[in-house]
């Protein structure tokens, strides 16, 4: 078959994870610097300049790429740090920058015209006109789509966007349109847009109760768990709340996006790349997800017509997932 293989883009929160992703078959690894400039600004995570240099070297020796995510929206006091980070990324030879902020896109495209730019999912571009703005103004070559579109809508964008399309293929599911959610800052003052974090760890409190565990985010009760339940991290959209007298996951169940079952449709639609969420996750997670998705993408590429997702793949991936189950999310219309 002549179609270009779908690229596999994997996360790395540190150098060992990057090596693991490369060793297990990632086509590209995306990383962030250890500062406020990327949407996974968690303690103990991310890369110094030297580590990024080593990571790029390692990937390049294996014929793989490294993308640098600088995808928060810098406020004036942090703008220089963000622009400096772009300079560093350009100097050390990152294969692409993943940006969201208009002024950073402008800075990167005018200062480094040869540098490949991807519009981050935080850029929240969900239609061809929005994408056209970034393409015409800054020459972006790829867009990472927010997890709000159906597969049909994504397939149409492949035809109309005029840039490569990257979608999320596996990992924790943001139910909100990325770049359009301030739930975290409403409760903690920090959000993905402004600080690169969602529900920051310092605001989390677990409280043992007679019947189990309660989880709080800055004093707001997000969830209660009985002793026989696994307690999940208090992300606001995944909490249990009371609406009309009923307690339930009023926004979204903790679940995991997994596109394994529709890989042939992804390939046929002409989507350039699928991305794995989780720069904050462990090296073991990166290893397993990368290995399985590599095998699945190869099998799908070889013969999409007979491809089916192996039960063992699904089981292994489900074990890594939030809530231990998976969904096709917005790609599958009835979910919406």
């Amino acid at each position, binding site marked *: 078959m002549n179609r270009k293989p779908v690229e596999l883009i994997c996360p790395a929160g540190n150098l060992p994870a990057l090596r693991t992703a490369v060793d297990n078959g990632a086509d590209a690894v995306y990383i962030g610097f250890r500062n406020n400039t990327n949407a996974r600004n968690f303690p103990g995570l991310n890369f110094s300049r030297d580590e990024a240099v080593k990571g790029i070297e390692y990937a390049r020796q294996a014929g793989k790429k490294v993308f640098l995510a600088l995808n928060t929206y810098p406020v004036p006091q942090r703008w220089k740090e963000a622009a400096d980070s772009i300079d560093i990324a350009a100097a050390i030879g990152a294969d692409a920058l993943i940006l969201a902020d*208009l002024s950073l896109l402008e800075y990167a495209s005018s200062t480094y015209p040869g540098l490949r730019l991807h519009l981050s999912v935080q850029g929240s571009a969900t239609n061809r006109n929005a994408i056209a703005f970034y393409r015409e103004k800054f020459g972006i070559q790829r867009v990472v789509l927010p997890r709000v579109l159906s597969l049909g809508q994504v397939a149409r964008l492949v035809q109309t966007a005029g840039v490569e399309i990257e979608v999320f293929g596996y990992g924790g599911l943001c139910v909100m349109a990325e770049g359009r959610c301030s739930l975290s800052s409403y409760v903690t003052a920090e959000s993905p847009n402004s600080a690169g974090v969602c529900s920051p760890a310092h605001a989390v409190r677990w409280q043992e109760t007679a019947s189990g565990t309660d989880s709080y985010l800055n004093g707001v009760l997000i969830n209660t768990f009985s002793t026989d339940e696994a307690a999940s991290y208090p992300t606001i959209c995944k909490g249990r709340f009371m609406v009309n007298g009923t307690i339930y996951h009023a926004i979204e169940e903790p679940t995991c996006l997994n596109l394994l079952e529709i890989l042939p449709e992804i390939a046929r639609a002409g989507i350039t790349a699928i991305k794995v969420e989780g720069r904050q996750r462990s090296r073991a997670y990166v290893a397993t997800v990368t290995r399985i998705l590599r095998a699945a993408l190869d099998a799908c590429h070889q013969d999409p017509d007979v491809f089916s997702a192996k039960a063992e793949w699904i089981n292994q991936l489900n074990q890594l997932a939030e809530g231990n189950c998976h969904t096709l999310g917005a790609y599958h219309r009835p979910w919406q």
Partner: protein
Amino acid sequence: MKISIGPIQYFWKRDWVFAFYESLQDSPADTIYLGETVCSKRRELDLGDWLDIAGSLRKAGKEVILSSLSLIESESELSSLQRITSNADYAVEANDMAAIQLLSGRKKFVIGPHINIYNQHSLRLLSLVGASRWVVPMEIGQHILGDILQQRPQEMQVEVFAFGRLPLAFSARCFSARAHNRGKDECGFICGEHTDGILLNTQDNQPFLQINGIQIQSAATCNLIGHYEELVSRGIDILRLSPQFEGMPEIIRILRQVADGLLDIPTAMQQLLPFQTHGSCDGYWNGVPGMHQSSAATG
């Protein structure tokens, strides 16, 4: 200080919408934003209806701006957007980059609160393609805003969300339909049965959020009137009030009187209390969690 009325976030019956805007004709509001910004399935009014309302409001001396959808996914949503952006008579509030792409270089426009502008460089960039007013994103507090406005583009008006439930998030999913155990495609326009959305409480019974279709709002009412002097000294031109079902004429009157120096702030805060069903908040303005209410500003 001017007062604007933001777009109606909820799905109100057609007659209510007409009656609401009729009631604004004689109100002391300066600017009215019209149109659906949350869900494209809500079609009680078409563009012709909105333009009729716009005409009456303009005749009554109001500035009218057409607001556009915040989350745009489909071709039909893009065509509706195009009809709005290509109208000859009214300025447009862009709430998605698609609108900015269509308006760029063609027409003056308002940067809506759902466009991510966090620094002076991005603001300047949009000013160069035609933005003449900026509605500041909810998250941005007064100190960061002050930093940004040190390099305020010439003739850029600044509008701040000053009263109402804060629009916090948008999704592909409909949470109103979910609250009624329905899928989005079978929603039956259930959001229309809730004039101000559906209250979401925490399990220990604290009002927390408000479900409004594909949008999540704060349950608490953002109220920045306690910060009126700061709003003035920061150079804010317009205060936005977000429509709620009860009390808008009264709320507009109170804010107008504060702006005209006819009402002191503690009295105004007192008079606004009945219109803040689930409490108030001003945290974002102070650079702390948005849900917080500062004691200095409670009146």
